[in-house]
């Protein structure tokens, strides 16, 4: 319980091993993670470093081989399938690289769906969806099917959907992995606004730009955390002065 009291989301000795003998893969190998409420955390590493598996363990999409996952004071790694499904629906917002929108539903219906599944009234779900689509800059796209939207717009719908049940935490797996650079900036702007709004966020990525949105960045290699970088800017000088040194304009 001690870990659970300090962090909104934490893990202890978390492991995920596949195979055995010489074929053993240690995808996640002894991860100690703690994300405070309101913190935006990035886990960065090359492909195969275990970061996606880690995110699946954090969100209850996979069960660990060993170790513990705590969310809001509750140990979740041993919950039943049914309890996990309820937890995912009500307290976690997921954002995936491939968006995972329902093709036959409009943008608004995609956003409403998790709210309806969580037992909200159709009216409340509709209102929340409209608010969120406006917040992600898609107020004029609510009736569009995903096929009529650009990649960046689809990901913004997916982010709105992730927020519809006011999750305790948003988990994002390579949220810009399928996007061109202009769409990437749209999504970065949105993630940055989530961070400033105090949404607890864990994003795993190989892209330094995505990671740079976080307050704290953890580098992952071979299933383990190897380095940690604080990115919050409250310490050490004004923004302009810090940037000046990067542009050759200090003087």
């Amino acid at each position: 319980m001690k870990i659970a009291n300090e962090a909104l989301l934490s893990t202890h000795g978390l492991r995920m091993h596949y195979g055995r003998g010489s074929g053993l893969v240690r995808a996640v190998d002894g991860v100690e993670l703690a994300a405070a409420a309101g913190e935006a955390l990035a886990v960065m590493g090359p492909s195969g470093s275990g970061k996606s598996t880690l995110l699946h363990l954090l969100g209850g999409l996979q069960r660990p081989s060993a170790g513990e996952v705590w969310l809001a004071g509750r140990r979740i790694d041993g919950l039943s399938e049914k309890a996990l499904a309820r937890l995912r629906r009500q307290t976690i917002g997921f954002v995936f690289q491939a968006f995972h929108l329902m093709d036959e539903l409009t943008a608004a219906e995609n956003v409403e769906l998790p709210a309806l599944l969580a037992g909200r009234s159709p009216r409340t779900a509709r209102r929340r969806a409209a608010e969120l689509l406006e917040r992600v800059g898609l107020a004029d796209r609510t009736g569009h099917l995903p096929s009529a939207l650009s990649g960046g717009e689809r990901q913004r719908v997916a982010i709105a959907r992730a927020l519809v049940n006011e999750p305790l935490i948003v988990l994002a797996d390579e949220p810009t992995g399928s996007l061109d650079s202009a769409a990437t900036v749209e999504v970065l702007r949105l993630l940055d606004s989530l961070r400033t709004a105090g949404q607890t966020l864990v994003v795993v990525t190989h892209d330094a730009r995505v990671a740079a949105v976080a307050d704290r960045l953890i580098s992952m290699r071979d299933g383990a955390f190897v380095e940690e970088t604080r990115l919050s800017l409250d310490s050490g000088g004004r923004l302009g002065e810090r940037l000046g040194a990067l542009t050759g304009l200090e003087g």
Partner: protein
Amino acid sequence: MAQNVGAPNKEPSDGYQLRVVQEVLLALLAKEASHGYQVRARLQLALGPLAEALNAGQVYVTLNRLEKAGLVSAERVGQPDRPDRKVYELTRAGRTRVLEWLGDTSWPKPAPAEFHLKLVAAAAAGLADPERLVADQRHALLAGLAAAQRAALTEPDGSVAGLLLEGVVLRLEADLRWLDTCAQYWTSRKAR
């Protein structure tokens, strides 16, 4: 690299920056004769949040130097109840200098050589662990990337200062990729 393009007023320590500020002010004056505060306003518009890095007096100090060097001429304009203001205008020599600067393709601050030599020397002498140096450098660049990107994301669409910030972000991204390559090299050397 940066110093080899004929800077007449080179200062021993920060001559490079100063030289660039001189050329920039000259170029900003090329449009029309202007007061110092107008030049400063143009500079601030172009730099956005980065303008904080320049101290306010530097524009005026530099304009004085340019005047002494004969690159700008200054005309005093009287104002009621206030000290005279100067209106600066490019001289022929100043215009020539601006054109030289525009045509100069040397790229500012090529940093990798210094850092590379730091790693090689540290490893050879056993002074420090190159992997540690790379990791520390990575923390610093990531913090810089976060700062530049946050500033870029808060610029409105179409902001000219946003374009500069985007340049900083892209450059840091490339530097970070190179650091990853450095880390791989020095890690594999250690494993041998």
